[in-house]
């Protein structure tokens, strides 16, 4: 009788479904150091790792779906050196992950900085190292609105870039390049650091005799300590 009880009791310990959301036989490591604009470590900043399915970000790094589509696998805080290491199993049924640094004060969805569209292939030997993430305060930056005034129907601006120090809030690890014809840019918002000399770089696409001709233009711009509007006239 004792043997039978022992047999069934111990056997029952192993009778469970093998399907689980996370693969515990692998652990992926993420490491970064979070600093401010003066390269001082930011201590006790929350860093969280989320898994999600599909491409929930468009090519402009805008959210498409809300927080409920994300599974928070692990969270931690930066140490006295501003450094954090998070080790976590990968989701069995999720292909992408996003890592949020801090929390944006305007709402719970966004972090102060986010690493998005991260996949397994972005890890080297099971580790993803982001050497430094700079978090700027809002009083260190201004808004720069770049507008395009175009009265010419045969040409348009196909690409627009700000070359300078910006308060970036997103790094996209797997940008989807589109082969479709570029949509004309009519305006763009940047958040540059105050009091710097920077450059506005744009690509003009001109349609001549059915052919697309492209040219690059770079214009210097001085960023001061108030919000700016910069206009490109074609």
């Amino acid at each position, binding site marked *: 009788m004792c043997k039978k009880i*022992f047999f069934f009791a111990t056997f029952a*310990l192993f009778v469970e479904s093998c399907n689980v*959301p996370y693969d515990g036989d*692998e652990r*992926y490591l993420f490491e970064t150091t979070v600093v401010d604009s003066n390269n001082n470590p930011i201590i006790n900043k929350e860093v969280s790792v989320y898994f999600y399915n599909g491409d929930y970000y468009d090519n402009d790094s805008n959210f498409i779906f809300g927080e409920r589509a994300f599974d*928070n696998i692990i969270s931690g805080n930066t140490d006295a050196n501003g450094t954090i290491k998070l080790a976590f199993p990968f989701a069995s049924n999720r292909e992408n992950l996003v890592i949020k640094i801090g929390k944006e004060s305007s709402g719970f969805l966004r972090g102060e900085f986010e690493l998005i569209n991260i996949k397994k292939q972005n890890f080297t030997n099971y*580790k993803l190292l982001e050497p430094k993430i700079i978090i700027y305060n809002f009083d260190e930056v201004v808004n720069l609105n770049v507008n395009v005034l175009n009265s010419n129907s045969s040409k348009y601006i196909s690409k627009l870039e700000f070359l300078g120090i910006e308060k970036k809030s997103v790094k996209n690890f797997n940008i989807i390049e589109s082969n479709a014809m570029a949509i004309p840019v009519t305006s763009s918002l940047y958040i540059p650091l105050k009091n710097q000399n920077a450059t506005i770089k744009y690509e003009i696409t001109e349609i001549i005799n059915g052919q697309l001709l492209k040219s690059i233009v770079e214009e210097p711009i001085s960023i001061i300590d108030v919000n700016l509007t910069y206009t490109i006239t074609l």
Partner: protein
Amino acid sequence: MIKKIVFWLLFSAISFAQNQESKSTEKTVKFEETFRIYYVIPNQIGNHSLAKDYENRFGFGSKLTLVSIKNFNLGFGGEYVAYTITDKSSAGNFSKGNYKNAFFLVNYPIPISSKFTINSNAAIGVLEFTQRENQVRQSHQNGTNFRLGMSTDYELGKEVDVFFGIDYIYTKFKLNANPEIIDYFGKSNNLQFTIGFNFKSPKQY
């Protein structure tokens, strides 16, 4: 899963085998049953996740020896230990961990007096470690473990002893990870205490 099925098929075949009489006049091979059931007090030591990120809640185990070859008792055992996660920033956003293992064991009893016996034992086994959140399995890890230990048995009656034991259990988890963390999440060292009862079968076959 296939390994578990094969293991339990072999185990059940042995458990329900017919009695056999040894042909040796010295009876070097004896079919004697002893059955232990016990409470487990794990004590994870060292720098690894189970020691640093978890706190043990409770555990229990059972062992069954079936055959004795020149006084070495051979058998099987199983243990279950439940843990609570105390550091989610290291272990992950779960609440509990469960350590389940089954092992093949050999022990050697050394009578000290008419009432006391020292049992030394060794075992090798397989394990599954699962992490849970809200009673739902979230992740699992497989592995192997090796143990050495001893227990002190005090005879309460002809068929039952009470015992106190101590085992050192080394666990190696199956894990693919960066070398920086593979030891921390891939191994554990446990100095485990057990207390329980040993039921003896007086029959000799």
